[in-house]
């Protein structure tokens, strides 16, 4: 099973604040631990929303809206993708995730399990089209 640990945004991540040495080394240690357990698949931090954009839909109309966006807590600042044998193992890994806040105070991470395409899209033809372009976790 694959899970994504999502680090939520904050004023600091939105400012593009660099992590303190302490946070950087905690994050490195955590990801090394994941790697040494054979559980790390991928991970990255994201630029502030000021450098991103949204596309808003209203029926057939679409509008491009440039960042930055309010509600920093609703934004994603980074992610870590892990392979776990069970939901419980993923919970345990998430419990060990370092406090990701730049100022060492409030922060939040969220963990979501990756779908396998078969779970969300019933139509075989459509699944095939997604799979042709390599989207979606593969059934093991």
């Amino acid at each position, binding site marked *: 099973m694959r899970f994504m640990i999502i680090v939520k945004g904050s004023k600091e991540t939105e400012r593009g604040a660099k992590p303190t040495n302490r946070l950087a080394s905690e994050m490195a240690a955590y990801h090394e631990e994941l790697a040494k357990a054979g559980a790390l698949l991928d991970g990255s931090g994201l630029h502030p929303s000021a450098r991103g954009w949204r596309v808003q839909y209203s029926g057939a109309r679409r509008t491009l809206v440039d960042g930055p966006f309010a509600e920093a807590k609703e934004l994603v600042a980074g992610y870590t993708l892990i392979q776990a044998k069970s939901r419980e193992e993923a919970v345990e890994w998430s419990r060990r995730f370092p406090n990701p806040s730049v100022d060492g105070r409030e922060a939040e991470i969220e963990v979501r399990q990756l779908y396998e395409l078969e779970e969300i899209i019933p139509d075989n033809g459509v699944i095939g089209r997604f*799979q042709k372009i390599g989207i979606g976790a*593969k059934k*093991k």
Partner: protein
Amino acid sequence: MTATEFNRSIDAIWRMESARVIAGLMRLVRDIGHAEDLAQDALVAALEQWPREGLPDNPGAWLMAAAKNRAIDLRRRKKMTDRKHEELRRGARTRRGTETAEEDDIGDDVLRLMFMSCHPVLATEARVALTLRLLGGLTTDEIARAYLVPEPTIAQRIVRAKKTLADARVPFEVPRGRELAGRLASVLEVLYLVFNEGYSATAGDHWMRPSLCEEALRLGRILAELAPDEPEVHGLAALMEIQASRAGARVGPGGEPVLLLDQNRGRWDQLLIRRGLAALRRAEELGGANGPYALQAAIAACHARARTPGETDWKRIAALYESLAERTPSPIVELNRAVAVSMASGPAAGLELVDALTSERSLKSYHLLPSVRGDFLFKLGRLDEARAEFQRAASLTRNGRERTLLLGRADACTKSKP
């Protein structure tokens, strides 16, 4: 949290930590059976205390401390009756004095444990069972189910393996110098055997047993972190990542095997391919491009890079097989080379190589030889001969799914007849 949820959490933590705890204990007790017993005692203590007191912040350290305290207790008790153990006790005290250093060395301990459980003094199947048990944290029942053998067989295999290691006084250490290469090869062999057992099940009705693949891949990734300077470690990791990337594509809707060139490449897992290619690069950067695993990974990478079967660089694959045959000559490598040559230069060229193998004794009951030969003959339009070969291959394979596929190909020879 309900009691069941709690037990499941503890079970998950145990699977994550047991190898590290056992490895850490080995420094203290130097006997795998004893270390495992102590670790089990710590698990029992956790099952009693955690539901009452909540999960500790660092469950791994908790388990390790509980197990070590138990070890020291047992030793004290023994000391009262046996003064000779004074020496051991002193050992334990110095260990306790260097607690922090030990924490940093846990990875090395796990590596030592891996070298120990894959020690050549053990028969291959004993190495496999012990490694899955100690490093994979699998129960004997899980190992038995994965290998389709009765549980007591596995349990006995593991007990005997531990005894053999103790009798042979196999040291808890990472071998150095000249010994390292051979011992590392044994570790890699065990991991790849587990992977292959999962990837193309040698017996039973299922074509793959994904849990074994996943476990081997996980152990391979761990090894790559623990022994990062060894190119072949990355070569094996690369090989397994790339092969695992095809897991979803090599089984059809009815559970039947789908051959490489017939697979829907859109179903190949791009994340695993990317990881595999990165591991292969690491092996090459360390000067290991010609290692047997790196060469096999490079072959797998040729397929992974081709977006359609037609884009496959068969010339390069044939050349890589040639290098592989030089490094590790084997009829199986020759057989694979024949396939690559047939793709690069036509079935007649492939048939020539395969015909040279038909007298090979070790391939006498190997189903892929007639299967490949049948394929070349089929492409050359020699259908009667092809049918006979497919039928022979079907009678040799022990995998039910594969037999069906081969009989299907034999039938196709009759249907294709004008």
